[in-house]
């Protein structure tokens, strides 16, 4: 058995120390060691986007990262979007526009959209489609997701603070 390696990282603003086998993927570490099961495992190949999280502010596939690579990093998962029991405007928008059905792809879409809206607070439809093109949904047919992100952009600019309502990374 390969000796576990120590890692320290911050997830949703909380510091964690753990010892992990090198082969443990970041998504499995988040789900199984930290109990943060909001991030989902879909394809384990990087194609579906269900495992998307923010690493040091960038949306990445946590199934294609090893936990040991996140040593010293700041991670944000879907659990970090809401604050004090209040949904983030993105989550609120998805609810209002029915941007989810089974919800399996949703955390990945939320994190990808979060990165998009931080970089492009008023995205065009083409920019939304480009940014979310790497996330697959089998239920909705995508139109409601597009509407949800448009609504979220409106909500966030109304709040005048793109990071409002969630843990900042």
């Amino acid at each position: 058995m390969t000796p576990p390696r120590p890692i320290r990282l911050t997830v949703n603003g909380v510091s964690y120390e753990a010892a992990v086998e090198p082969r443990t993927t970041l998504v499995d570490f988040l789900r199984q060691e930290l109990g943060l099961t909001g991030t989902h495992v879909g394809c384990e190949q990087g194609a579906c986007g269900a495992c998307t999280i923010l690493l040091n502010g960038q949306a990445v596939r946590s199934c294609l990262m090893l936990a040991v690579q996140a040593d010293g990093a700041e991670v944000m998962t879907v659990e970090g979007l809401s604050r004090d029991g209040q949904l983030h405007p993105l989550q609120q928008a998805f609810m209002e526009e029915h941007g989810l059905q089974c919800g399996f792809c949703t955390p990945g879409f939320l994190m990808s959209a979060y990165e998009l809206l931080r970089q492009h607070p008023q995205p065009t439809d083409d920019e939304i489609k480009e940014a979310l093109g790497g996330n697959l949904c089998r239920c909705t047919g995508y139109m409601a997701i597009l509407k949800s992100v448009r609504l979220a952009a409106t909500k966030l600019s109304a709040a005048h603070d793109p990071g409002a309502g969630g843990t900042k990374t």
Partner: protein
Amino acid sequence: MKPPRFEYAAPTTVAEAVSLLQQHESEAKILAGGQSLMPLLNMRLTRPGLLIDLGRVAELRYLRETDGGLAIGAMTTKRTVEDSAMVKSRQPLLHAATLLIGHAQIRNRGTVGGSLAHADPAAEYPALAVAVDAQLRVVGPKGERTIAAAEFYVSYLTTAQEPTEILTEVRFPALANDTGWSCAEVARRHGDFAMTGAVVTVQLGSDGRCAQSRIVLFGGGPTPLRAQAAEQVVIGQTPSEQLWAQAGQRVSEVIEEPLSDVHASAEYRRYLAQVLTRRALAEAAARARGAA
């Protein structure tokens, strides 16, 4: 679908990485951005004894201008290249090719060196490197050497690097004046692996004829394919829709054995190569006229 067991090392310098590679040669695999290697590990298609993670080798992350060209450290992410205003204005072909790679989330981790060294037949960067005569710098136990892109790609997922060598840098020369470019591919969905793609440059002379042209295909065979026969059709001739169609036709004649798989048949890849060559030449020539 979980990775098999492996030892893991995270060196902080190139020298340390090379030393590890030399000690564990047959068992070791380099981890760069992980966007190609991790799927292989997750599916257990590769079982290295030791993974050497270059993620902490800070000296490999850079993007700088040199003599009108560009030097890029191997661990520079594609996202860095994509977001660089310098790349967009000085190396628009590199910028355009980068946007075709996967999705933003992949580009946030995937590296320039990783793509070049992994040598996937459907990858954009290897074909681009061949099209612009990029220089690839590798470092091994015996020291450093530079390999021209034309000699770098040997076969399917195989480069001219020795097993103990690490790719550290790629240099992209700037395109000559009056040179137009195009990078185009066809994939089933936006962001999927290309079934076939083409990287094309056209330089127009003062007489309006094609002074130079480079036509490189990807996805059509085990390595990037430079279609010199098609280049010869174009060079010295006056640009026209017919000329591009003739070049496209020639490309489909010289592709030897396009891959036939679940994504596309050999016949379809051959057909795509013809169409993409024709379109890319037209686009490159239009850009050259704009640049003139």
